[in-house]
């Protein structure tokens, strides 16, 4: 009997913990309050004869700031895809057009007819954010989404899939059943994104993709896509690092996790740009030790230093927490402070390293602005304004000269 009870308790603990650890679902209280207030305001508005649309359009979002006092809504760029080569695979990997379908996955897509904008104002609208998972970056992202929704008087519900595509599939169904006015979708993986997007499209719910690109086919279902300009920021970093290295020397690349768009963008953006502007810089090796363990990265970089010795001049990392830490520690342990290390993004760790002179540069990929951008697009769409199909955050290099401008860090 005792065993049976213990088994039941164990099973319950497991079930509760899985619910706690996975598939977290939060409702943004502040946004709800704001929405309630907005709803109240809406009725007041109606009573006073004013139009919700007029009031929505009058919202001052331009002056909103993040925790560092920087604008919450930053400059964006609208990408222009070049002409697709007949057979990109026939081109060498160092040619940027070889990666055409990865860099411009949307370029060959014919979008399906999208829902008409209600054009009745953003105030009082409900948005569901289908987030891919928990991570310090995404915590700041979600915080900004909630802040932006509050500014626009919209309600937001956040569902996090904890990096599990199956959980995201369930959350897509749940989101559809709740009939929100719009969904912001950050896919867990590209494979399942098509099915998810098709379901939401068939349900007649407009979807804005954000942060992570869906598969090529998935773009046809999207109202718009916005996020970091991954290819542009890695090319920009490559340009800066090449200049710092004097356009010569061997370099190694640590990739992002395989499976996502960042894996190709953050490695081959660098490689193709260097092939173009610094042909004397030689790619010595590319490795994928992951983004979870600085110890693993440290081992790989230590091995590179052993193998390539003085030939190794530059290391590129695809993120700046685990990978930059592992690289810096390996170089310091080997007494190789001459090796230049550049990483993508702007975590607090990265900014500290840049200040200390241990990291040559990072890139400005601010999670708060990333999280606010789809809300801005949604608000514009609800207000009946035209929105672009693809909108990216303008990238920038963060170095010792301008790091103060990016402090305090967002994550």
């Amino acid at each position, binding site marked *: 009997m*005792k*065993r049976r009870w*213990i*088994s039941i308790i*164990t099973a319950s*603990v*497991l079930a*509760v*913990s*899985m*619910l*706690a*650890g*996975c598939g*977290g679902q939060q409702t943004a209280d502040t946004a709800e309050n704001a929405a309630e207030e907005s709803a109240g305001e809406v009725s007041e508005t109606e009573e006073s004869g004013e139009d919700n649309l007029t009031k929505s359009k009058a919202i001052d979002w331009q002056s909103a700031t993040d925790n560092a006092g920087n604008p919450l809504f930053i400059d964006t760029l609208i990408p222009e895809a070049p002409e697709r080569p007949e057979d990109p695979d026939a081109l060498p990997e160092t040619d940027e057009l070889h990666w055409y379908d990865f860099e411009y996955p949307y370029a060959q897509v014919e979008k399906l007819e999208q829902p008409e904008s209600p054009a009745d104002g953003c105030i009082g609208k409900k948005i569901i954010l289908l987030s891919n998972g*928990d*991570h*310090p970056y*995404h*915590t*700041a992202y979600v915080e900004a989404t909630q802040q932006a929704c509050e500014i626009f008087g919209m309600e937001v519900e956040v569902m996090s899939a904890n990096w599990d595509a199956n959980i995201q599939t369930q959350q897509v169904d749940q989101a559809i059943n709740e009939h929100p006015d719009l969904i912001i979708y950050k896919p867990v993986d590209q494979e399942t994104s098509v099915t998810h997007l098709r379901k939401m499209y068939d349900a007649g719910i407009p979807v804005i993709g954000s942060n992570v690109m869906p598969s090529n086919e998935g773009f046809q279902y999207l109202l718009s896509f916005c996020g970091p300009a991954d290819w542009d920021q890695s090319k920009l970093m490559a340009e800066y690092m090449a200049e710092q290295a004097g356009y010569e020397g061997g370099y190694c690349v640590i*990739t992002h996790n*395989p499976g996502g768009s960042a894996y190709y963008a953050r490695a081959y953006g660098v490689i193709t740009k260097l092939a173009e502007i610094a042909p004397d810089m030689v790619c010595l*090796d*590319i*490795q*994928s*030790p*992951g983004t*979870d*363990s*600085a*110890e*693993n990265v*440290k*081992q*790989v970089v*230590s*091995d*590179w230093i*052993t*193998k390539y*010795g003085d030939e190794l001049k530059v290391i590129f990392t695809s993120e700046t*927490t*685990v990978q930059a*830490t592992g690289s810096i*520690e*390996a170089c*310091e*342990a*080997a007494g190789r402070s001459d090796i230049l290390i550049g990483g993508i993004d702007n*975590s*607090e*760790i990265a900014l*500290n390293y840049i200040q200390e002179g241990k990291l040559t540069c990072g890139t400005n990929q601010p999670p708060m602005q990333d999280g606010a951008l789809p809300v801005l697009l949604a608000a514009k769409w609800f207000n009946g304004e035209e929105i672009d199909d693809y909108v990216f955050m303008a990238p920038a290099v963060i170095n010792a000269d301008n790091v103060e401008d990016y402090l305090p860090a967002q*994550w």
Partner: protein
Amino acid sequence: MKKKSGLEYIGKFGTYMIVLFLLIAGCLVSDKFLSLTNLVNILDAVSYLGILASGMALVTYCGQSVDLSTPSTIAVASFVSILTLKFGMFPMLFCTLASGVLIGALNGLVIGKFRINTVVWTLAMSFVFAGLIRVVFGSANIYPKEGNVELFEQISRYRVFGFIPLGVIVMVLLMAVLHIFISRSRIGRQFKLVGCSEEVAKYSGINVLKIIVLSFVGSGIAAAVTGLFIASLSISACYNYGTGYEFRAITAVVLSGMVLDGGRGSIAGVFGGVLAIGLLNNIMTLLGLNSFLQNVVTGIVFIVIVWFTNYTTKKLEALNG
């Protein structure tokens, strides 16, 4: 008789034969392989894994399979270390180790007392603590702001005699102490007996519950020390800092020749298993194999060694009648 002693020899020193083979292969791959810097790098690269695996080995040795709660214990310890740093280094160390002791004791008590499946319970605990961390901290990184941050950073960066990383010293000392404890002490022999047969141990008057609790406490402490080093290296704490370590630790334990059913193997063997992983990774990077191919090779080596361990164990059992 000769065949039996040969198989016993392989069972006992098989891991070190792999290490020897890898050392020879490394010399052939690169002339820099045997440099002192490279050898220290190899040890440094597996030091945290070695610390974790030595604790995990206690659980395996006393027949409790594996402790899958270690990733969360690592994460909890990393948070505890950063949150308590403001109270000073010694209180921080005490609290961090205490977090490992508490999680280990809870695991050991529940598993030893109620005979719940180890894998299910420790996995559940892993979910519980990972979930709690995310509920409390919202999956954000936390950074040390108060206390002696510079000294905290040195835990993972300090090099004894300016050359040997502190993590390596801790790993070697921990393994040496545990090896002597397991092979020479009375309680160590009780670990072995519980691992071989809990029923026999129970009827021999051994307090089986105490031994199981001790094994999990050992695993918890080792995971907490690993968490402390990782937090110091990253100068931060995050819920996912222990991700993947448990499977690498299990690999090291299995490579050591330790049987998951318990009662066989040694901590010295675990040191060999950890060394084998470090050497294999080092050689593959020196060869220029990409990460995906490295995973394939590691997997194949793992399968071959597990098969070989099973083969020699069965042969020995057959020869022993």
